[in-house]
């Protein structure tokens, strides 16, 4: 049967299973703490604002959920002219 399958589309169920497992692991863990990213964003902003002047709209915090670990990506623009704040 496998041989004939080559020409057919690949089975989609295993993909569905993987996606669900990752998603639910995170949804179960985040009950009662669903706004972790918002919280992190605020605190990261506060720390950075202590040292450089930043535009709040230019700060991007993203969480990518993986099977074993998640990655947190912080992406912010620091304008050249106001690079340093009076320390």
């Amino acid at each position: 049967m496998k041989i004939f399958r080559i020409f057919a589309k690949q089975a989609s169920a295993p993909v569905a299973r993987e996606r669900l497992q990752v998603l639910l692991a995170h949804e179960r863990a985040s009950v009662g703490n669903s706004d972790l990213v918002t919280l992190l964003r605020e605190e990261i902003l506060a720390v950075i604002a202590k040292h450089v002047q930043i535009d709040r709209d230019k700060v991007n915090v993203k969480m990518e959920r993986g099977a074993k670990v998640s990655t947190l990506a912080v992406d912010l623009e620091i304008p050249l002219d106001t690079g340093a704040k009076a320390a």
Partner: protein
Amino acid sequence: MGKVIVVTSGKGGVGKTTSSAALGAALALRGDKVVVVDFDVGLRNLDLVMGAERRVVYDLVNVIQGDAKLSQALIRDKRVETLYLLPASQTRDKDNLTEEGVERVIGALRKAFDWVICDSPAGIERGATLAMRHADVAVVVTNPEVSSVRDSDRIIGLLDAKTAKAERGERVEKHLLLTRYDPNRAERGDMLKVDDVLEILSIPLLGIIPESMDVLRASNVGAPVTLADSRSAPAVAYLDAVRRLTGETVPITIPGEKRSLLGKIFGRRAA
């Protein structure tokens, strides 16, 4: 004291009402006294599926608001004499269900019946949480499909947190009923496997109901599928599920597994 079962899912249209009627009728066929309660206030359908739509006078909301006595609202099935229906209101909405009212009605039903089956509305709002509120047992109806499994996971979380049992530190007994299982899609590998769903949700399996025209036919004529044609594949699956629910050990067969074996042989010849 009877047992209260909630038939629930989170996601809509997965087969809760079909299953409530089928399981209720199957339990009543054993001689147990059964009432099936429609909690889908505003979108009642259980009356249609059970063929009692022309006999509805009073409903759950009338009883809760004191406009009718429980005995006036209960409709006795014409085929199985130990089977009753408590219909939902079609004209009101779920805000008419009060917590105390539901507690009082379920308490009274529990005293008079062996089984009280609550057909939950979809969603996770008031209607659904009130339907599960007093459950001893939950039948989580799930289709082998990603969004249904995700919603079932959510509902399982609510069963462990928001029910009267959970608040007393006890556990609602949970069972998975996999419905609308399509052997052809399973064979092609485009449907979540039974094992996958079980592993993900990790609650015991009560049964697998195949996708079948017999379900549609039964609802067309207004009979629970277990009464319409008790030898059809979905009816047999529901009857087996009821045996498991009452403590018997009945091996689970995955719909179409045998036929798909034959199908493979023919497939090879044709190729």
